[in-house]
């Protein structure tokens, strides 16, 4: 038997029909996650063809992209526009019509879909998971094959529970050694994207391996896999291990009793064989990774926070620096910050909020800065509040919001003004992503919190070395 990668194993388990030179494979989908923005047209396609939803029991929905994160008024959400409200009511109607479990306003589990689904145990090792959202790669942290699809493909999965897929190539990213104290999964993700380039992973599924990856918590692994698409890869995967199993045990949709034991035995086989062959490999040293920030409007334009911007390699980088109003050969540290955003499917989990609280405890954010802290889900919100984190945040002068995608995609009214500099824990710094003309620097929660305190782009490391002000 030939050696196989983790990706090969999950892929082969789901082939309804094998790939031929003329036709892609037919891949069975275990979980289909649905949200309000990329689904309405797919439901319309079903209705136009008078088709049923094949497997409602494999389909789960929530709303996250366009919903308000400000408190309800008179017990009701206040939408940024009529359209966003209509989008949510369309989802509610579609889920009712097609018998889909919707985690709506009244659900104690509602949240950003890539935060919510793992919390519910909907994401399990070895599964195929899709969603009309490019950050579906997040679920690969559990050893699932998870990737984003377009709306027509959403309709395909609705109707057949399958997708036509040509098999991508395999890319292994190995991060050896240990991380230095205070370095997070977000810093690893940005370092990997900088190394690969924005298209370095196009056509590939990434497997993240190595000691520094194995040492990450599940939250950290989700952060790392989440940003695979920023290097062009549709999916990122990490082989499941005891950290994975311990995290999953007891969750709502996780197997129980004998089924759990059987599942563990099976999941333990989900790793790349020693002699597995990858089409491409890169490796990084964990100890060389510093707190990272981006300096241009592409996620691969990332560097150590205390570094200087490179001399532009071409027109693209020159244009990027101009947009960011940064100068070549100069530090970004010290640039005045207007807005800090903590949240998103990349960094909206409880451990991210701990990192922020570590910096903010006993401190105030700079008077110039507006800081939004948006939990990734209702579960995250409840847990944070039970630990009193929200009190630390509000005492520091930050806004503590309801769960949602918020300023990551700036569809819900949470946005920056033209020219404002935003330090954001989200995944994209594209021009205008957080508001027309807004300038985005991507960073970890700890770095973003340090920036909020200083009112400037700042290194988070000194905060770890200074005791909290009482």
């Amino acid at each position, binding site marked *: 038997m030939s050696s196989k990668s983790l990706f090969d194993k999950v892929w082969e388990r789901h082939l*309804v*029909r094998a790939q031929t*030179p*003329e*036709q*892609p494979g*037919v891949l*069975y989908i275990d979980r289909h996650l649905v949200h309000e*923005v*990329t689904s*309405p*047209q797919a439901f*319309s*396609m079903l209705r*136009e063809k008078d088709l049923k939803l094949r497997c409602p029991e494999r389909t789960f929905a929530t709303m996250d*992209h*366009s919903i308000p994160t400000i408190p309800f008024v008179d017990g009701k959400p206040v939408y940024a*526009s009529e*359209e*966003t409200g*209509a*989008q949510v009511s369309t989802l509610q109607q579609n889920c009712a019509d097609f018998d889909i479990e919707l985690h709506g306003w009244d659900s104690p589990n509602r949240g950003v879909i890539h935060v919510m689904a793992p919390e519910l145990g909907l994401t399990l090792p070895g599964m195929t998971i899709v969603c*009309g*959202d*490019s950050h579906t790669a997040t679920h690969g942290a559990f050893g699932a094959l998870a990737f*984003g*699809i*377009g*709306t*027509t*493909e959403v*309709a*395909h999965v609705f*109707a*057949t*529970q*399958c*997708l*036509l897929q*040509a098999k991508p190539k395999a890319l292994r990213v190995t991060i050896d050694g240990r991380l230095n104290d205070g370095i997070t999964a977000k810093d690893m993700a940005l370092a990997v994207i900088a190394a690969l380039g*924005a*298209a370095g992973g*196009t*056509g590939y599924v990434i497997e993240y391996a190595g000691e520094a990856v194995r040492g990450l918590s599940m939250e950290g692994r989700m952060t790392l896999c989440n940003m695979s*698409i920023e290097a*062009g890869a*549709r999916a990122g995967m990490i082989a499941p291990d005891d950290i994975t199993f311990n995290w999953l045990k007891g969750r709502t949709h996780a197997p129980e009793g004998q089924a759990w034991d059987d599942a563990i035995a099976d999941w333990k086989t989900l790793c790349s064989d020693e002699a597995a062959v990858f089409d491409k490999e890169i490796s990084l040293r964990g100890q060389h990774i510093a707190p990272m920030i981006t300096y241009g409007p*592409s996620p691969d334009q990332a560097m150590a926070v205390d570094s200087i911007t490179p001399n532009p390699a071409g027109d*693209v980088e020159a244009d990027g620096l101009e947009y960011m109003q940064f100068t070549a050969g100069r530090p970004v540290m010290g640039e005045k910050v207007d807005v800090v955003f903590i949240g998103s499917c990349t960094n909206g989990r409880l451990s991210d909020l701990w990192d922020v609280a570590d910096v903010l405890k006993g401190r105030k954010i700079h008077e110039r800065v507006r800081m939004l802290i948006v939990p990734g889900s209702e579960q995250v919100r409840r847990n944070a509040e039970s630990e009193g984190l929200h009190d630390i945040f509000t005492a520091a002068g930050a806004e503590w919001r309801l769960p949602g995608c918020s300023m990551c*995609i*700036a*569809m819900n009214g949470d946005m920056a003004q*033209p020219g404002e500099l935003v330090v954001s824990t989200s995944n*994209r710094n*594209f*021009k*205008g*992503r957080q508001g*027309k*003309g807004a300038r985005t620097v991507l960073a970890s929660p700890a770095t973003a919190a340090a920036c909020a305190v200083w009112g400037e782009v700042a290194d988070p490391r000194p905060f770890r070395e200074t005791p909290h002000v009482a």
Partner: protein
Amino acid sequence: MSLEKITQFTSKTMVLEAENIDTDQIIPARFLTTTVREGLGKLAFYDWRYNEAGLPVNSDPFAGKDSGIHQILVGGDNFGCGSSREHAPWALVDFGFRAVISTKVADIFKNNALKNGLLPIEVEPKVHAELLAAPGVELTIDLERREIIRPDHWRQSFEVDPFGRQCLLDGIDPLGFLQSCETDIEKFEARQT
């Protein structure tokens, strides 16, 4: 949605040289509040074309480019990266584009484009450089032969997903193909339980 057959067509190119043109540039997220897929052409590259007041900017690369004449978009490397929004090809098709050419087209955008009759065409860097340097050149795209041809008989082959190509040549809806796999899907499901 049945697909219109495409075998070949001729049009002028429009060039957007920037690399890594992401789908947020093609259609900004604030326009994704729609629940339909029609009429998005007017929002294509909106922030490249209009200022905060909604007035056209001087640098509008689309000014004077009649979409009926310029149906081929030549973009910089790594076209269509970022978000999976199918609104991006919907907007480009509604604007009047029928093909995008780059050295590399991002995976999800490529899949989405093919399903909407927008040809994602990948060419060698040398060919790409020639096309970037000649905005407005007339090209014939021959999907059957996988060739782009200039009036002076310069011709180059291109890469395109084989199955997507066949669907467009024959006007096959991929969903219909998936539905024809029903027996295999049922067998697969029976094996799982």
